[in-house]
C-alpha cells in the first residue's frame, strides 16, 4: 500500500516538469537547451533580456513545440485510458482502442482524403473511424444484445474490410500520394500546430470526463454481465457509453496523429502492474502516465534530428522491451 502511494505521488508530480523539459529540447541548430531555458525564465518572470534570437525562440517554443507536446500528452493519455476502458468492458486484456476497426477505418478515411486532392484529411479520418466502429457494433447486435465475443469478432472483420479498401486506394495512388498515405498510417506529429490541438480538445475533454466518471463502474463491468446486472448496473447501456467515449476520443486523436500502434494495448498493462487493476485508481493514472510516456517517446522521435522516425515505430521499439521487462518482474500471472 505504501509503495502504491509513492508511485501515485511520483506519477502525478511528473507531468509539469516533464512538459517544461520537453519544451526546451529539440533539433534546432539555431539555439540549444540553455537558450531555451533562459528564454523561458525571462518569459515567466517577465525580465527583459532582448535576444536577437528571441523571436525565433518564441515562435518555435510556443508555436511549434508546445502544441506538439500538449498533443503528445493528450494522445498518450487518451489511448491509454481508452485501452484500459476497453479492456475492462470486453473483459479481455488483449484489446486496444483499435479493436473495433477504428484504426483501419481512420487510415482508409485519411488515404481517401489524401488521394482526393485537398479534401480534409482530419475530417475523413475521424468520420471513417467512427463509421467502422458503428459497423462493427451493428454487425454484432442480436436481439438487441451485443455479446463481447461477437463484438470483437465483427471488429476484426470490419477492420479487415477497411484495410483491404485502404490497400486499393494505396494501389491506385501515384508515388507522391502513396508516400504521404504510408507516412500517415505510421503515425506522426511533426506537423502539429495549435489548430490541430484545438480541433481535438473538445472531444478529448468530454470523453476523458465521461471515462473518469465511469472509472469505478468499469470494475463492475469487468466482473461480468450477470454480476453487473444483479448488482444494479445495466451492462449494455454502460458498455455503449464507455465505447462511444473511448471511440470518440481515440478517433479524434488518430485523425491528427495517424495510427500509433500498440500503445493503447501496452500502457494499461504497465499501469496495472504498477498500481493494480482497480480502475478507480488506474484510469486517472493511465491518463497521466500514458501522456507522459508518449511525450517522452515523441521527444526522442523529434530530437534524433536527421530523419524523423514515425512515432508508431518508436512506440514499438521503446514500449515493447519495457513491457517485457515489467512482465518478467511482476508477480501476477494471467490464467
Amino acid at each position, binding site marked *: 500500500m505504501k509503495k502504491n502511494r509513492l508511485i*501515485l505521488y511520483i506519477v*502525478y508530480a511528473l*507531468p509539469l516538469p516533464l512538459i517544461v523539459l520537453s519544451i526546451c529540447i*529539440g*533539433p*534546432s*541548430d*539555431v539555439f540549444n537547451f540553455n537558450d531555451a531555458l533562459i528564454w523561458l525564465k525571462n518569459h515567466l518572470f517577465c525580465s527583459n533580456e532582448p535576444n536577437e534570437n528571441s523571436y*525565433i525562440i518564441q*515562435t*518555435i517554443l*510556443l*508555436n*511549434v*513545440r*508546445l*502544441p506538439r507536446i*500538449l498533443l503528445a500528452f493528450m494522445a498518450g493519455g487518451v489511448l491509454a485510458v481508452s485501452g484500459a476502458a476497453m479492456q475492462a468492458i470486453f473483459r479481455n486484456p488483449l484489446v486496444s482502442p483499435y479493436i473495433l476497426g477504428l484504426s483501419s477505418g481512420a487510415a482508409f478515411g485519411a488515404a481517401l482524403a*489524401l488521394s482526393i*486532392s*485537398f479534401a480534409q*484529411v482530419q475530417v475523413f479520418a475521424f468520420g471513417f473511424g467512427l463509421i467502422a466502429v458503428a459497423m462493427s457494433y451493428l454487425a454484432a447486435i442480436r436481439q438487441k444484445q451485443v455479446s463481447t465475443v461477437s463484438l470483437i469478432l465483427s471488429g476484426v472483420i470490419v477492420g479487415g474490410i477497411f484495410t483491404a479498401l485502404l490497400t486499393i486506394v494505396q494501389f491506385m495512388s*501515384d*508515388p*507522391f*500520394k502513396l*508516400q*504521404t498515405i504510408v*507516412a500517415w498510417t505510421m503515425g506522426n506529429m*511533426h*506537423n*502539429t*500546430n*495549435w*489548430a490541430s*490541438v*484545438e480541433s481535438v*480538445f473538445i472531444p478529448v*475533454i468530454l470523453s*476523458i470526463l465521461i471515462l*473518469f466518471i465511469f472509472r469505478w463502474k468499469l470494475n463492475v463491468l469487468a466482473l461480468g454481465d450477470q454480476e453487473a446486472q444483479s448488482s444494479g448496473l445495466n451492462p449494455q447501456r454502460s458498455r455503449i457509453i464507455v465505447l462511444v467515449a473511448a471511440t470518440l476520443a481515440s478517433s479524434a486523436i488518430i485523425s491528427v496523429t495517424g495510427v500509433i500502434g500498440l500503445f493503447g494495448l501496452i500502457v494499461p498493462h504497465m499501469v496495472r502492474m504498477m498500481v493494480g487493476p*482497480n480502475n*478507480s*485508481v488506474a484510469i*486517472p493514472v493511465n*491518463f*497521466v502516465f500514458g501522456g507522459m510516456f508518449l511525450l517522452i517517446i515523441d521527444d526522442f522521435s523529434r530530437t534524433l*534530428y536527421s*530523419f*524523423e522516425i514515425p512515432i508508431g515505430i518508436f512506440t514499438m521499439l521503446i514500449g515493447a522491451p519495457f513491457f517485457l521487462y515489467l512482465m518478467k518482474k511482476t508477480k501476477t500471472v494471467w490464467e
Partner: protein
Amino acid sequence: MFASFNKVNGIGIIIFYGIIMPIFIISCSSSPKKHSNIEVVDFRGQKINLEKPAERIVCLIESATSGLFMLDLGKNIVGVSTNIYDDDIYKYYSVLDERIKNKSLPTPGNWDFVSIESVVALKPDIVIIWASQTESINALENIGIPVYGVMLNSYNDVYKEIEDFGILTGKTQRADSLISYTKAEVEKLKKAAGRIENKKSIYFMWAQGMLETSGKNSTVNQLIELGGCTNVCIENEEHLIVNSEKIIEWNPDIILMWCNSKMEPEDVLKKNEWQSINAVKNKNVFELPSIFYSDLWTLKFPQAARFLMHNAYPKLDISINPDSSCSEMTKFLYNTTLPLP
C-alpha cells in the same frame, strides 16, 4: 485512503485542463492579416500576399530550386530539399552554389517530411513546397509563414511557376525572358515535328518499375508529342501501372526510359516476353541521360524532347544535336557552364 486520492486526482486533472491549457492556447494568437502589393495565386488556388519581394526562400522542391537559380536567385535560397545532395544532382548544384558545394546549405525537409522547427529557424519570407503536402503547409501557414504550393501537370504549369516566382521576388524581367526563350525552343520543336509524316509510337517507362507509365494527361505525354511521337498509353491517368500483355498489344516502336539507376536499355532488350515488340526487335530502347537535364518540371524540358527526337528520327534532317543544344540551353538558363551528362 483511496477515496481522498480520487479527490486529488480529480482536482489535479481539472486544474491542468481547466486552467493551464486554456492559458497556453489563448496566449498563442494567430498572426494578423498583412496588407501588400505583391500577390500571386499558387497551384492550390491560394492567394499569397507579400509586403515586399521575398529575400529569404526555403525551397523544398528540387525542380523549383533549379528554377530559382535560373532566375538568378541562388543567394536568396536559405534552405533546400534533401535530394539536392543526391550524387547525380549534387554535381550540378555544387557548381551553381558554393554553400551547396560545401554541403553547408540547410535541408529542412523534402517531399515526404518537413521539420517545421528547422524551417522556422531559417526565417523564410516564403516556403515553396508540393501542394500535396497539405499537413506541412497547414502547419507553416498556421505560424504565419507564407507558403507557395506547386502542382505541375503540363509545361504551361512550369511557365506559371517561373512567372509567379518572378513576381514574388521582383525578378519579373528575367522570368519573362526565360519563358520566352523556352517557348521559342518549343516552337522550333513543333515545327520539326510538323515535318514528320509517320509518327512513331512510344512507351514511356518510369524508373520505379517496368510497368509504370504515364497517360494522356501528363508532362510525359507532352514530352512525347513535343518529340514528334505518340504515346501508346491512351488512358488519361498521369501515373499508372499497366500489365505486360497490354504493352505487347500496344507494340510501341520505341521504349523511352526515365533515368534509371537499376536498369539499362540492355536489360529491357533481354526481356523474354517482350521480344515481339518492335522497339525491342529494332533495338530502339533509350534511356534519358540525366535527371538534371531531362527534368520535365523545369524549363529544361525541351532538352528531353530534343533527345527523344534525335534518337527517334536519326535520319531526319533536323539540326538537333542534343549535346550542343544542351550546353547552349545551360548557358542561357543558368548563365554558366555545367558538366554535361
